[in-house]
């Protein structure tokens, strides 16, 4: 960062960034707990994830307050302005990730009461992919690395593909045995929530890219989620 004439301005900006990183850490931990709850059928982890988002909301509030104060009192320009904006936007995305993690954990509590099903391992793996995206995009935020952000942005297609494949698999399960519909619907929502987390990571990647480069990543985000157009023909088994 370039030197500021008013030193404390630089410090205020840095503190804001540190707060976003801290919030990122909380979101990461909450999401990790939710995925662990699914992967290891760990209800304690699930409870932890469900209770974890009040602190995230608090920090988001604080980030917004501080950013507003910075905008009002310092009227930042250029990179400083973009950094302030990035803090607000990233905080918003992280808050959504926290909500999604909470929802996954709640569903994990339900799933853990049912007999184990192999597909949860595929979900856990998809969760790992999303965790990886989240980690990398937060790393790119703290290190101000536009290339890393772009890489995250480009990789979102992978998670979408896993989602597509799981979606089809779940549909077939449900058709084969209607008794599994309840369970599979939860799994479907978990998969969707993980996929949404991936989307929020790409949003953060866009924010980071803009903060560092002042330009925008191309308008057409890699989008491989085609489930909204998927239909599986219903066949009656003789």
């Amino acid at each position: 960062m370039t030197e500021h004439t008013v030193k404390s301005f630089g410090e205020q900006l840095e503190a804001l960034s540190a707060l976003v990183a801290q919030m990122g850490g909380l979101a990461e931990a909450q999401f990790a707990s939710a995925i662990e709850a699914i992967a290891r059928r760990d209800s304690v982890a699930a409870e932890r994830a469900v209770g974890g988002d009040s602190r995230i909301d608090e920090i988001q509030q604080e980030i917004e307050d501080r950013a507003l104060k910075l905008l009002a009192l310092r009227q930042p320009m250029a990179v400083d302005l973009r950094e302030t904006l990035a803090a607000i936007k990233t905080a918003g995305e992280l808050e959504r990730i926290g909500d999604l993690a909470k929802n996954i954990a709640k569903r994990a509590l339900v799933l853990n009461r049912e007999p184990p099903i192999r597909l949860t391992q595929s979900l856990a793996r998809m969760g790992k992919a999303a965790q990886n995206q989240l980690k990398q995009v937060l790393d790119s935020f703290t290190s101000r690395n536009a290339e890393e952000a772009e890489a995250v942005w480009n990789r979102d297609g992978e998670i979408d593909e896993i989602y597509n494949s799981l979606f089809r698999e779940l549909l077939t399960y449900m058709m084969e045995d209607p008794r599994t519909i309840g369970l599979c619907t939860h799994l479907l929502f978990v998969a969707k929530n993980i996929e949404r987390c991936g989307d929020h990571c790409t949003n953060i990647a866009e924010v980071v890219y803009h903060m560092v480069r002042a330009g925008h990543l191309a308008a057409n985000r890699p989008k491989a989620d085609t489930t909204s157009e998927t239909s599986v023909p219903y066949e009656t088994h003789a």
Partner: protein
Amino acid sequence: MLESFARLRAIAWPLMIGAIAGGAVVLFAGPGLFWALLALGLAAMLIVHFVSFQEPILRAQEQTVDDPLASLPPMTRVLLDQLPIPVMLLDDDERVLFVNRSMRDVLGPGLDRKRASSVLRNPTVLAAIAEARRGFATNVPFSLPVPIERYYQAYAARISLSPSVTALLLHDLTVVKRSEQLRADFIANASHELRTPLAAVSGFIETLRGHARQDEVARDQFLDIMAVEAARMRRLIDDLLSLSRIEMNEHVKPEGRIELEGVVRQAAAALKPLAAQDGMVVTVKAEPELPPVIGQQDELVQLFQNLVHNAIKYGREKGKVEIRVGQADGQVFAAVHDDGEGIAANAIPRLTERFYRVDVKRSREKGGTGLGLAIVKHIISRHQGRLAIESRLGEGSTFTVFLPAARPETPPKPAVPEPVTEML
């Protein structure tokens, strides 16, 4: 208080010299022995006073400089840096003052003067650091789940230097946790996957004991099937064992310098007879003068054996398997291409999933265990490399492994030609 003392001390030496000079002048210029002795006596008192207090005051002064670590003897710094335990020292603003080598291995480079939350944002650790700054030493477990799961115990404590410093020590528990988890996973996987072939074998034993006892044709047929199932169980156990062995070491960086071309040729040569059975040809092309990669020989051979084996299994009959070795962006890559049916796009990201099979029936027929690519993935992950899978239905698939090239620190060893090179 200490500071004003220190300031007084700064003018003490000129005062003393002044007093001695004054005494000397008075002694020789005349106003009398009394004044001369008084001045000299004063000088002596000043000297005694400041010499005796010099040590502690000096120390207090040093501690008020910006870097509280400046007072550390160089030896201690070197020791800290070389310590196999990750250590981080933070100042009062929770900024990084010092990280040792092990800590850099954990968190990556470029940590100096950054805030703790920017370098290690795990909330458990940040809470421990905050607690330690308040004077309560804390000891908490935490994990870094991606890219490779690691477990640590973090110790945070305040050290009363002035200004005070907070120390964070990590104790790596990955090995312990991993072996616990792997054992559980192994048992779960093994029991689940072995059940199918075992059921088949026991079913046939039952039949052979019963009504097929006298039927010679059926007996031979059943024994053949039993042999196939037994072979499948053996392969499965082999794969499960090698998978858990690789996973066990996944967090340990490999150290050897390996010529990738040799490894690829070795793997290809080993599978040539198998390819010949289906009338397939395996070719290896390599760019000249490739840098070595950091890796572990046996694992890399296994990696390429698995990939080439897959290419043979899922390639077209009488087709070609082409392997290209080259370099790009500081990485060495090897691309294994087959001209088989290709893989659907939505199956690609799940290929490396344990026991995932695009076509369950076909995989069983081909004798697959569902673990080959999972093993590939874990080996690549340990080598900090990357696997790219490109495939189009009807046009075949390409599996490309990227591995970081070794830095030319030591002169690369002359490539020893593999004895099998001529075969291909």
